[in-house]
């Protein structure tokens, strides 16, 4: 079987932000080129931006505290924004948020544009504020995000620890949009990453054409909750021209 039609290939360099509306059925693959990457991500229904990724609903519907293949990302409206169709990493975090300018200053030092030009120390909070601003969204729209390639575990007492080397060179995760989804990415070091140097890793983005989840799709069938989530998602498009390529 040949790969579906390639729509876009684009690098996401360290420190960089990015956004795009992924049409229903299209896929986005994020590849951790060198290993050890960390990409913070937010998701919105592109047709109704007040509908957005909901960390608690995503976790409790699927009885999980991590995200990997066959999981889906729920909005606050009971619908599936994206499915995780492929994952060679095994664990993506969504419970520990993202870093700020203050985190960077404390950990890495100043890292100003004046000195470093475009190698300056970028942070995900500011990246999100800027990228969301392009859609007239703002701070109030920044919710608990997903952290691709990041693993943070909780022990029996709830204590959190960052797991290094969770993602190997060439590891990738693929999302399929189930709503027309505005995806906002920020490639900066996770605030719990113990590495002392500011060195966000390059990530490659690949977008391909595709169709929404078929009836027998593993994401739809991975738990009864997801079956119902897809029913609600399909119902949202019922009676409308489904605009996928």
């Amino acid at each position, binding site marked *: 079987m040949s790969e579906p039609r390639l729509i876009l290939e684009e690098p996401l360099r360290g420190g960089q932000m990015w956004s795009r509306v992924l049409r229903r059925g299209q896929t986005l693959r994020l590849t951790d080129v060198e290993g050890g990457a960390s990409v913070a991500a937010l998701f919105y229904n592109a047709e109704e931006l007040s509908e957005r990724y909901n960390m608690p609903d995503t976790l409790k519907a699927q009885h999980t505290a991590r995200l990997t293949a066959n999981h889906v990302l729920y909005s606050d409206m009971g619908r599936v924004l994206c499915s995780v169709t492929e994952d060679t990493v095994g664990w993506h975090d969504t419970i520990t*948020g993202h870093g700020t300018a203050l985190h960077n200053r404390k950990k890495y030092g100043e890292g100003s544009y004046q000195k470093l030009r475009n190698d300056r120390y970028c942070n995900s909070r500011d990246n999100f504020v800027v990228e969301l601003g392009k859609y007239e969204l703002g701070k109030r729209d920044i919710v*608990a995000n997903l952290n691709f390639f990041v693993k943070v575990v909780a022990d029996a007492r709830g204590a959190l620890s960052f797991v290094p080397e969770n993602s190997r060179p060439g590891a990738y995760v693929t999302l399929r949009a189930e709503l027309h989804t505005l995806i906002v990415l920020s490639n900066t070091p996770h605030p719990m990453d113990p590495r002392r140097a500011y060195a966000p890793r390059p990530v490659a983005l690949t977008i391909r054409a595709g169709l929404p989840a078929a009836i027998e799709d593993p994401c739809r069938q991975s738990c009864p909750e997801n079956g*119902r*989530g897809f029913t609600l998602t399909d119902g949202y498009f019922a009676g409308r021209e489904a605009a996928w390529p």
Partner: protein
Amino acid sequence: MALVESQLVPEQALFDQVIPAGDGFTYLVKRGQVLRIVDLEGNQAADTLFYDAHEPSNRYSAVDTVREQGNIYLTTGTRLLSTEGDVLLTIVADTCGRHDTLGGACAAESNQVRYALEKKYMHACRDTFLLTIACCTPDLSKRDLAANVNFFMNVPVTSEGKLTFEDGVSGPGRYVEMRAERDVRVLISNCPQLNNPCNGYEPSEVRVLVWGQG
């Protein structure tokens, strides 16, 4: 789980109100005042959000709170952090032992996903939040309803990444108390959920008390 009791007595409280199951509540807690939430009958979830009273976009952040304290459970000593990294309140007493902040609030739509499509009619926390802010806090809207605290609720997570809703660790009369570190708007939905053990399948009243200068 170390339990810490408070020396404050209800007779000296500035404010004292019972919230029935399924009702909403909002109050402006001033800096230095102490807020107590009491689980009157046990096993009741109090879904709670906090906002900087003067800058509501600076709101409670579950993920910043758990990351900065290095633990997913909230208890005595926990600093409830905002999206801007400010301390909104500090938990100063807790006779329950731990509280959840990953489980979020129920909504009609998420109830359909979690339990059955026919559950849409059931009362849910998000409805309570929307109604309460529409009536009392016009500066807030749906986009301000982020991941909340679930006082008295038990949502264990395993090192393998499993997450479950379990019967509460709370009991009748258990309480949690927090000191406001700045002027804070508190928004509570006394959870009406009937589909999981978060309320022991029998939603009940909680009591809210505030001490300090009026």
